[in-house]
């Protein structure tokens, strides 16, 4: 129950941090999300996909 008390071990309720770069003004949280998306996309492109031998057998 204590986990649910605030619903957060690391509550993010403090005033937001922002990155300013020229005319771009983005929250650290959004920046992290976007970076994670790009990284995930790149990893998905390169990471080996299991079942290669099975697919070779069914070529």
């Amino acid at each position, binding site marked *: 129950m204590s*986990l649910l008390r*605030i*619903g*957060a*071990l*690391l*509550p*993010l*309720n*403090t*005033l*937001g*941090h*922002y990155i300013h770069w020229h*005319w*771009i*003004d*983005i*929250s*650290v*949280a*959004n920046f*992290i*999300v*976007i970076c994670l998306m790009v990284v995930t996309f790149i990893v998905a*492109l*390169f990471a080996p*996909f299991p*079942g*290669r031998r*099975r*697919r*070779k*057998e*069914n*070529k």
Partner: protein
Amino acid sequence: MTKRFRPDVDAPEWKGGHSPYDILKEGAIALLVVAILTIGLAIVFGSPDEPAISLKTWSTATPVDFAQDALSQLNATSETATYGPPYNNVSTGQQLGPLQLAKWVGVTMQINTAKVFVIDPLKSQPAQPALKGALAQWSSASSSTRASWVANYTKSATKMKWVAGAIVVNATNAGPVPEFITYLTDMARTGALDAVLTQQSAFYTTNYTLPLLFLEDGTYLSNQATHEHLAGDQWGMMNETGNYPGQAWLWLYTFWYQVPPFNSSGNADILVWGLMMLLTLLLALVPFIPGLRTIPRKVKIYRLIWKEHYQNLD
């Protein structure tokens, strides 16, 4: 007869092999992974909940800002009073070239700000001799007399102060206007104005149009929003309160508001809407747009996606 094969439109027939595939198992695994990730994120980060600002909160924190807003409703200079459709016909609303969409659709929620935000709420209160007298004085006056009272009060209201729990404005020939502003501020500070504007003499309600418009016309709400980095010129549409991720998918929509000509245009909203509708249509119609539909084949990221297939071919 064979048609010309268009590599960006047509797909070759697959004559290769198939391997076993369990679609239900894939779905179940995806569901499990997403559920665990969701629960984990919820436990670690929770979610934001900044409490709503009531008219009571606002008028208690910044009574002068509230009173100035009330005056702007009475003298019809507030944003709501001068908005145009769908609230009134004081202006024509925004236009996109020859398109005056808001005007063409018209007024569907008529709001006379002096009546709705000031006079009617005051009339709803139990009779107090001074207020009763003020309202009687107002209703028996001509519209030019009322306008003169309001104008005289407005002139002096630039030096409005909050002193010993009361609004103080040294105005002359302002009729009952000082009583109106004072009483309305007191009403707000007790919470009575929240109730009157929300309920509109009904019992149940789920429509907050009136208190929200009143609140937005002041500066308290927008000051809180700017503090939280949610304002339109702060890329605010993408943001969430605190350090939570917001709506990153609105990046392009909010981008336009930061740059000319949108950032200084009175028609910014309809211009951005029009542009985003066009871009969305282009995205939907990519399969039919030469150039846009050719980029994937030229950029060759597909060679990474299908690398195993191309290696087998080699």
